């Protein structure tokens, strides 16, 4: 069996769990929010590296983002990926999932043959979970989303477990295939320090491609190449008038119960 070629899609995202709202304006405080590798994507890299350890494989990690997204690629190399590609160009900015999947898809075609593409289920900044299936469609390969287990890889097929809302599905897919994986699949390793530092060096096997490298015109990608557009954004402001209940634990508990009963939310004789 020839060496398996695995492509992993990773995205650098703002750590949305760290985001706080300005208590006065209700706006996002974006300053100081760290950029991290999208959590599910770490599971995707781990899955690829485990497969490499078990079956032997060459792993190429592919990301799209601003220049600083190189860190996500470097981290994946630190975890065990062999090669990295960052798609970075001002023209890619503002892309919806249609434009993004087209850009990633074209980059994968440029990379050549592959057996398996692994991506995280969804990115925490967009939560769309659309890129995986759209890339699979672009490349006309089979897909499995919500993968929570990889049972077996054969030269022409892969058997995975999918996490459904109410159960587990065991699915056999013809290769090449694209998987999107969920957190329960594995526990991602931390990057190996030596590999991580190597990934920062000039001679690291990382390439940066722009729109022209992929043969795109500006109108094909980014905001102009998108089919959906943001019309408006707003803070999910609450219409509630918050009332703080003061005093000792005893007092506060008593006033809360009073409020709840007042609104007839509980039977009074609990």
């Amino acid at each position, binding site marked *: 069996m020839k060496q398996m070629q695995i492509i992993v899609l990773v995205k650098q995202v703002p750590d949305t769990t760290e985001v706080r709202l300005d208590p006065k304006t209700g706006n996002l405080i974006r300053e100081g929010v760290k950029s991290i590798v999208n959590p599910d994507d770490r599971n995707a890299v781990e899955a690829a590296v485990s497969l490499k350890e078990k079956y032997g494989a060459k792993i190429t990690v592919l990301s799209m983002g601003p220049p600083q997204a*190189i*860190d996500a690629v*470097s981290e994946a190399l630190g975890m065990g990926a062999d090669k990295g590609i960052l798609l970075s160009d001002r023209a890619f900015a503002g892309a919806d999932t249609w434009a993004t999947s087209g850009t990633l898809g074209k980059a994968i075609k440029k990379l050549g043959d592959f057996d398996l593409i692994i991506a995280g289920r969804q990115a925490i900044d967009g939560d769309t979970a659309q890129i995986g299936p759209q890339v699979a469609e672009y490349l006309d390969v089979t897909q499995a989303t919500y993968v929570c287990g990889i049972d077996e890889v054969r030269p022409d097929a892969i058997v995975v477990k999918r996490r459904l809302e109410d159960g587990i599905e065991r699915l056999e897919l013809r290769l090449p295939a694209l998987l999107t994986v969920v957190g329960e699949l594995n526990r991602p390793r*931390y990057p190996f*320090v030596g*590999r991580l530092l190597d990934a*920062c060096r*000039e001679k690291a096997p990382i390439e940066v491609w722009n729109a022209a490298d992929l043969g795109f015109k500006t109108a094909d990608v980014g905001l102009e190449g998108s089919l959906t557009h943001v019309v408006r954004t707003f803070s999910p402001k609450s219409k509630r008038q918050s009332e703080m209940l003061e005093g000792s634990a005893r007092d506060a508990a008593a006033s809360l119960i009073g409020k709840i009963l007042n609104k007839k939310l509980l039977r009074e004789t609990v």
Partner: protein
Amino acid sequence: MIRSNAEELLRSNIGRFVDSELIPKAQEIDARGEFPMEMFKKIGDMGVFGIRYPKNKGGSGGNTTLFCIICEEIARGLMSMGAITAMQCLMGTNFLFHYGTDEMRERYFLPAMKGEKVACFCLTEPEAGSDLGNVSTIARKTADGYVINGMKTWVTNGPVADFYTVLCQTDPEKKFRGLNFFFIPRQTPGVSVSKPFDLLGTRTTLISELAFSDVKIPHHHMLGAEGLGMDNLLSILSEIRTMTAALAVGLQRAALEDSIRYAHERAQFGKTIANYQLIQAKIANMAVNLEASRLMTYKAAKMIDNKIQCLKEASMAKYFATEGACKAGDEVTRIFGAYGYSMEYSAQRYYRDNRFLLYGGGTHEILQPNIAKWVGL
């Protein structure tokens, strides 16, 4: 060409490990007071211990700055773990790496890099702490090798180490010129290890005495050319002090971060204590000390990386950062009020653990006169 910044990337990744693996377990590990083998192995798995050594020789290809970043981050989670890591990265393995034979490197150094073997460094004796000229552990040369007799104390990792780098006197007449380092595997007959000391802080860093009684080792276990032990020690002294400063920076950060969080949470008289100026003053002082300590520490680290003599800068950094850590440990327990006195919160740990920094790498009673001398007194 676009490339990641190694220092930032290393910091964010080690920091992530500390936040998600070490900090949640820190209280428990500290309370148990045993060598944290599981955590030690995890850190070893990441290739952290090889940070100072080149990649083609089993290391991770870093430098002193990157080493200090690691020490700072890990100490931020748990000072003991920082101390153990520093020992493994620097004093415990440095002489073995530079002067050991290939066979010794294969059997001990490489496993130590992976966290499979624990290293330690034996310098202090009951009668020789700061005064190393007084070292009385004797290595007597014989036809087959050396016979070592004597006693070492305050040996960090002593109770669990698999091999020791031991400072011995080969010829008391020669004083400093008779000092040499020797490599002694633990299972060598004649080595005995005391029970771990009962310590105020860093309770999971095990420290003990070691006794050597007619310990026989071959000639090639002398690490470095004869008579150069003291020179070789001095060659890493700046690095030891800078590393200690980095540990202190880590503790200051932990204390400051906890203080800020707590000040926002704790409400008294209808507002959080963050609103009170005396609390603000404490936080401001901690922040300023931290910033200054950090600048001094990484200045010294950069000088080491650029091969510039910096014993003065390293000593100043160690002194200032450690004093800052002591102050931070004090202030955090005050900001926490009575909870600072409770073993349930981590504040007390910063208060106890900062003492560890006072002794290693030179006491301040030794450093201050030296600093005064260096600036022209």
